[in-house]
């Protein structure tokens, strides 16, 4: 199952539509999308607007691969569970978010070699064609870096 998520706050019709059209063209029946308060309703893939945290986690666990907006929550969750993830950043100019922080997030995670990025809908369709070969090379432990934990403990013990 490919799990698609746009997060809880805003719609991301550009990404959902691209996935929906790709699924139709490739006759993929194994796509489930969480679309948020969206105007565009998928015609080919199964979807829901919101998922409670427990249901969301269940979908993540069940998925073989995640397609998400470039939200840090979605990315970290995938890395923690060792799920391959493909992200597409929202753009402020298209009113998909208030600023371009997702573009910066996507660039950073891409350069760390952690997360492949689709920069637009065309790019996304091409990346989706390769999605079954996507693997998660590294997983993330459940906790922050030892360095950060140690710094916080030192402050708390002062």
């Amino acid at each position: 199952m490919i799990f698609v998520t746009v997060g809880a706050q805003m719609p991301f019709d550009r990404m959902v539509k691209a996935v929906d059209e790709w699924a139709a063209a490739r006759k993929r029946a194994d796509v489930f999308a969480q679309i948020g308060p969206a105007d565009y309703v998928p015609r080919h893939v199964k979807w829901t607007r919101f998922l409670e945290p427990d249901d969301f986690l269940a979908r993540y666990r069940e998925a073989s691969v995640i397609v998400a907006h470039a939200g840090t929550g979605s990315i970290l969750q995938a890395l923690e569970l060792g799920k391959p993830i493909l992200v597409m950043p929202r753009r402020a100019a298209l009113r998909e978010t208030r600023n371009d922080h997702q573009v910066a997030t996507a660039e950073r995670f891409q350069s760390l070699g952690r997360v492949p990025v689709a920069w637009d809908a065309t790019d996304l369709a091409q990346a989706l064609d390769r999605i079954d070969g996507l693997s998660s090379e590294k997983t993330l432990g459940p906790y922050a870096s030892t360095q950060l934990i140690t710094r916080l403990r030192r402050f708390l013990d002062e």
Partner: protein
Amino acid sequence: MRLRPAFEGHQVVYVTVSETYRSHVPGEKLRVVPDVTRWDRVGLVKCAARVLGVLVAERPDVVISTGALPGFFGIVLGKSLGCRTIWVDSIANVEELSMSGAKVGPFADLWLTQWRELERAGGPEYAGAIL
């Protein structure tokens, strides 16, 4: 949640914006405050009042926040009530500090950024990321 090992041996109260997170901290204390954006003036007052209510009720020694407006209120109000304060700027802010993060400095006893590039003298310190 990724910072939990830092709190071992300390009594922790979690403050969040949704009741649905209760299942993430079974057996631990969770308080819920309303979420708010900087464009919602009435919401800002309500949110700040609820955060103040939690601080007065719980009397924490230390307030730690990883970002967003309710956390910003927690740091500013916590500082004024004599708590020690820690701000860990969100990992989402990779090129510049968040609006809350840029303004919170004077109120944070420990002010951390998760990106080395954002470390500044007199500004936030980099001490590793939540990654």
